[in-house]
């Protein structure tokens, strides 16, 4: 790192006078105090939502996937929409933790841990949908993973759906390991701060006996850098492969080469919106405004507007290519998308994803949590609708007009989606309460460097 970047960056990362001791106390306070009434209320609510998932999953398993709304011609309904939505949410976490790490963006430190946790939980939610759509999830392992068997029947590795199995499971595992590696030194701090014997034991086991030894740090830093290096192409590959589910097929509206970059940009867009949505509540709830500052929000908003423009460009380019291709089916799908029976969904998407984020050009809005909050909420909604539009409008009027239909989800569909939000938020709340939400160790480095004038040794 150059002396220049250390001199410039840390100034904006903290508000007021932050000391090493104070920093640690602030980060570990939620772990070391009894949960507040607000937290209990919140987790009761999200727990109730999560139990809706259990209920609807139970209905799906006992009565079959006929309880879902998908049928000919819309063979892929909310399940795949939700799957792509959740995988996308996860992408911001990896972007923040890996790509911004490689680019030495010091501001990532404050929000990286939180975003990584979000990635892991979002992937957990995403996996539920392909798993339950198999009808018998307890057998899914045999259908999805190649295992030695006597029948001699194996998966088709040319299928994007099988690529998905490898991509998403690798992504989930690598994100989990990357996240946990980052947590180890912070868990060791939690262990050594612990007053209660039980707490000391639990964090002691979780921190795997970490001693902060420099012989360990020297390997650890290399491994962390390599995790970042592996995660960077991985995150780009995952949503590309998810987009292949559509792009490799021959359905008009899906069969386009723009899909991989378009999906990746959309994933980062929706992921950042979700990070912003949750972290604004987190910093308010745990009084961390001096560590997750308005500067952090502004930087995230800049990424949101950049990716919003990319997504907007992709929307426009899809229409252009449909016209330019001269293919009647392709043209019809896109006209139908904007003007057909699902026009309401299309324009919801366009307004939420392209128009609303334009407000972020104003510095005042970017830097004020209350003003930017509606925008990021709309982006979350819009990005769900984007996947809905792609999936449903391309299918509901297929090549044979006699089989055209209007797709509607059932209560079970809705319950599964709402329930998955419940699972996600419950996991987030547990995370905020039991694990350090800010990478204390990394923040100490930033703080130490900003205080020792040069910051640069060797």
């Amino acid at each position, binding site marked *: 790192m150059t002396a220049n970047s250390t001199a410039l960056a840390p100034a904006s990362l903290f508000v007021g006078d932050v000391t090493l001791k104070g920093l640690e106390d602030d980060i570990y306070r939620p772990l070391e105090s009894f949960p507040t009434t607000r937290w209990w209320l919140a987790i009761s609510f999200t727990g109730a939502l999560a139990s809706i998932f259990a209920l609807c999953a139970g209905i799906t398993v006992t009565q079959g996937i006929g309880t879902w709304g998908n049928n000919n011609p819309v063979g892929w309904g909310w399940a795949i929409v939700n799957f792509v939505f959740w995988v996308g949410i996860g992408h911001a976490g990896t972007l923040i933790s890996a790509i911004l790490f490689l680019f030495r963006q010091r501001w990532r430190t404050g929000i990286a841990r939180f975003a990584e946790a979000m990635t892991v939980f979002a992937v957990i939610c995403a996996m539920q949908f392909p798993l339950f759509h198999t009808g018998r999830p307890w057998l899914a392992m045999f259908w999805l993973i190649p295992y030695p068997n006597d029948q001699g029947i194996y998966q088709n590795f*040319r299928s994007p759906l099988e690529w998905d199995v490898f991509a998403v499971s690798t992504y989930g595992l690598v994100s989990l390991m990357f996240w946990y590696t980052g947590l180890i030194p912070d868990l060791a701090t939690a262990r050594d701060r612990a007053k209660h014997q039980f707490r000391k034991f639990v964090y002691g086991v979780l921190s795997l*006996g970490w001693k902060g030894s*420099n012989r360990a740090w020297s*390997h650890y830093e290399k491994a962390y850098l390599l995790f970042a290096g592996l995660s960077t192409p991985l995150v780009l590959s995952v949503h590309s492969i998810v987009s292949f589910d559509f792009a490799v097929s021959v359905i008009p509206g899906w069969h386009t080469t723009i899909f991989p970059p378009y999906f990746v940009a959309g994933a980062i867009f929706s992921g950042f919106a979700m990070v912003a949505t949750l972290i604004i509540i987190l910093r308010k709830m745990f009084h961390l405004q001096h560590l997750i500052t308005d500067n952090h929000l502004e930087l995230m908003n800049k990424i949101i507007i950049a990716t919003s423009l990319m997504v907007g460009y992709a929307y426009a380019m899809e229409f252009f290519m449909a016209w330019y291709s001269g293919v009647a089916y392709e043209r019809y799908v896109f006209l139908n998308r904007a003007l057909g029976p699902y026009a309401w969904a299309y324009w919801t998407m366009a307004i939420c994803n392209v128009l609303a984020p334009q407000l972020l050009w104003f510095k005042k809005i970017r830097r004020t949590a209350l003003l930017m909050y509606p925008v990021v909420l709309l982006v979350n909604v819009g990005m769900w609708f984007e996947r809905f539009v792609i999936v449903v409008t391309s299918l509901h009027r297929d090549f044979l007009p006699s089989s055209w239909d209007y797709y509607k989800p059932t209560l079970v569909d809705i319950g599964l989606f709402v329930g998955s939000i419940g699972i996600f938020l419950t996991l987030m709340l547990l995370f905020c309460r039991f694990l350090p939400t800010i990478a204390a160790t990394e923040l100490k480095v930033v703080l130490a460097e900003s205080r020792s004038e040069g910051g640069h040794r060797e």
Partner: protein
Amino acid sequence: MSRPTENTVGMVGLFDDPDALIRAAERVRDEGFTRWDCHTPFPVHGLDRAMGLKSSPVPTLALAAGFVGLLTAVALTGGLNVIDYPIRIAGKPIFSWQAFVPIYFELFVLFAALTLMASLFLFCGLGRWHSPLHDSDIMKHVTGHRFAIVLEATDRCYSEQNVRALLEETGCRDVRPLVEFEEEDSGIL
């Protein structure tokens, strides 16, 4: 329960400033100590060099594992979809490696990442919970905001007076013996 016995297994010098730690580490390295370590709340730049550490073999291992993953993927996809049960799809060649690239890539990353995690256990001593540092409250300082240098008594350069003098010379104002508590065999089993 029998009374635990105390063994002095080394000497600890605690510093408040990473720069002082680096200077001390350079001294200890030059004195020829081999069984010693620095313990810090966060990675300190320049300390690897001050301790004379060799560069980590982790990247090489991860890369090698990545290629093992790649070969596994080639064997898996080719072996199952080409040799064992050839499926011809859309008139494409039976061995169309392009269709398997996503699997190749994912298994490269997966194997490399699993190796990274395993090498952390191997090289950083993760999963070894017992250490006199935990028993003797030294870790409280280290994971907080102080920096420690630990010299083990088993080192051939080690003698109590020497080490204490050495640490004090480098400006350390908090030198403590490192004590290990050992439960005596109660003789029941």
